[in-house]
């Protein structure tokens, strides 16, 4: 089973030199720590910052410099700042090369649910609906199943959707899965996790190739 850090490390392999990347809150944020050496990427924060840097030192803390998670941040050399309309013009217009975000559920049609559990939790979708609508290249990070063992990779999402038919890549604690032709495709498995375990915890139809390589870190 992958740790949160290993999930982030696996996602980081989807980076390419020169990419503009939007990382969501939670595990996706950790991806920034594993950008391959020698590779230049720019992190976009949808509150209006392109070129997000590390957290500030105590001395650098600036109330006017935060990220989309409302955390204090810094900007890297060559960064730029703009208003929210411009920020989502980038996102909606498909200019972000890679978007990484968490989810409650995904399904075989590439649907994603991540913003609401009716009657229980209403935090709002923030920028997630724009991000999944605007991006070509999205990686969802999530645990493969709930703590009680219920699969989050479903034939059909049960929660209100964030976006329809937009997800093609999922990295869970058990596997790297792709979604196409209305099916999950098992591409890689976590070290020490068997194909059977993964298939058992995947509620939606899953295609298993003859060889499913184990990830190595």
């Amino acid at each position, binding site marked *: 089973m992958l740790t949160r850090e290993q999930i982030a490390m696996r996602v980081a392999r989807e980076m390419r030199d020169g990419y503009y990347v939007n990382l969501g809150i939670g595990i996706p944020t950790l991806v920034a720590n594993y950008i391959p050496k020698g590779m230049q990427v720019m992190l976009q924060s949808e509150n209006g910052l392109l070129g997000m840097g590390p957290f*500030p030192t105590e001395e650098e803390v600036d*109330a006017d410099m935060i990220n989309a998670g409302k955390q*204090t941040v810094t900007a890297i050399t060559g960064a730029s700042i703009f208003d*929210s309309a411009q920020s989502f013009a980038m996102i909606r217009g498909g200019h972000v090369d890679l978007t990484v975000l968490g989810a409650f559920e995904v399904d075989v049609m590439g649907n994603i649910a991540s913003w609401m559990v009716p009657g229980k939790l209403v935090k709002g979708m923030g920028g997630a609906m724009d991000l999944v609508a605007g991006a070509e290249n999205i990686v969802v990070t999530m645990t493969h199943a709930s703590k009680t063992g219920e699969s989050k990779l479903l034939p059909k999402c049960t929660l209100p959707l964030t976006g329809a038919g937009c997800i093609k890549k999922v990295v869970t604690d058990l596997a790297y899965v792709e979604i196409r032709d209305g099916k999950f495709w098992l591409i890689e498995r976590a070290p020490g996790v068997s194909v059977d375990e993964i298939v058992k915890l995947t509620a939606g139809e899953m295609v298993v190739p003859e060889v499913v390589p184990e990830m190595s870190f």
Partner: protein
Amino acid sequence: MAGLDKVVTSYEQALAGLADGMTIIAGGFGLCGIPEGLIAQIKKMGIRDLTVVSNNCGVDGFGLGILLENRQIKKMISSYVGENELFEKQLLSGELEVELTPQGTLAEKIRAGGAGIPAFFTATGYGTPIGEGKEVREFHGRQYILEESVTGDFAIVKGWKADRYGNVIYRHTARNFNPLAATAGKITVVEVEEIVEPGELDIDNVHTPGIYVDRIIQGTFEKRIERRTVRSQEA
């Protein structure tokens, strides 16, 4: 205040005309870049049944949260309410009407409102509860939903510096929704950290041209930080 000079010297003047039932568009993202003094003045005025268009609604006890506590808000149009327990509680109880709107759609709705665009199509929200009841149309093989723009009776905006003519600049990510809000108020009021003379702002880098601005007031700001996150010195 005569001619192009938009400076007012009291919060009463700044929000004169604001009345029960009005719609206010407020700049800010979380607690970053919020017009603190104008919000305090709305609380002081006790105006009720407000519709507030703002990405968030502050936190409990600060920002727009103080208007929630004071039961002055009838309806919020926001993308995210997760920082605010009272917001979530009033929402779930049905006391507060909330129109949850994707952040990019919200930004675009405000920009469109200021720009005389009554509606636009976006892929955001298609196939989700946000798209329900909205017109769907295909362009170039993809499905989009129709979203209408929004305008306010008032816009309340937080700027960094403004000149007397109402030209405004914002600092870092305190910009966020502020320049959009500034365009979409019938009356736009900007609270700034510093008022300068015309000519002091760089002509090519005015973020909000004065044509959008009706009143400017100098405020003092606490600038509370919602999530102070730091790294150790050596990192």
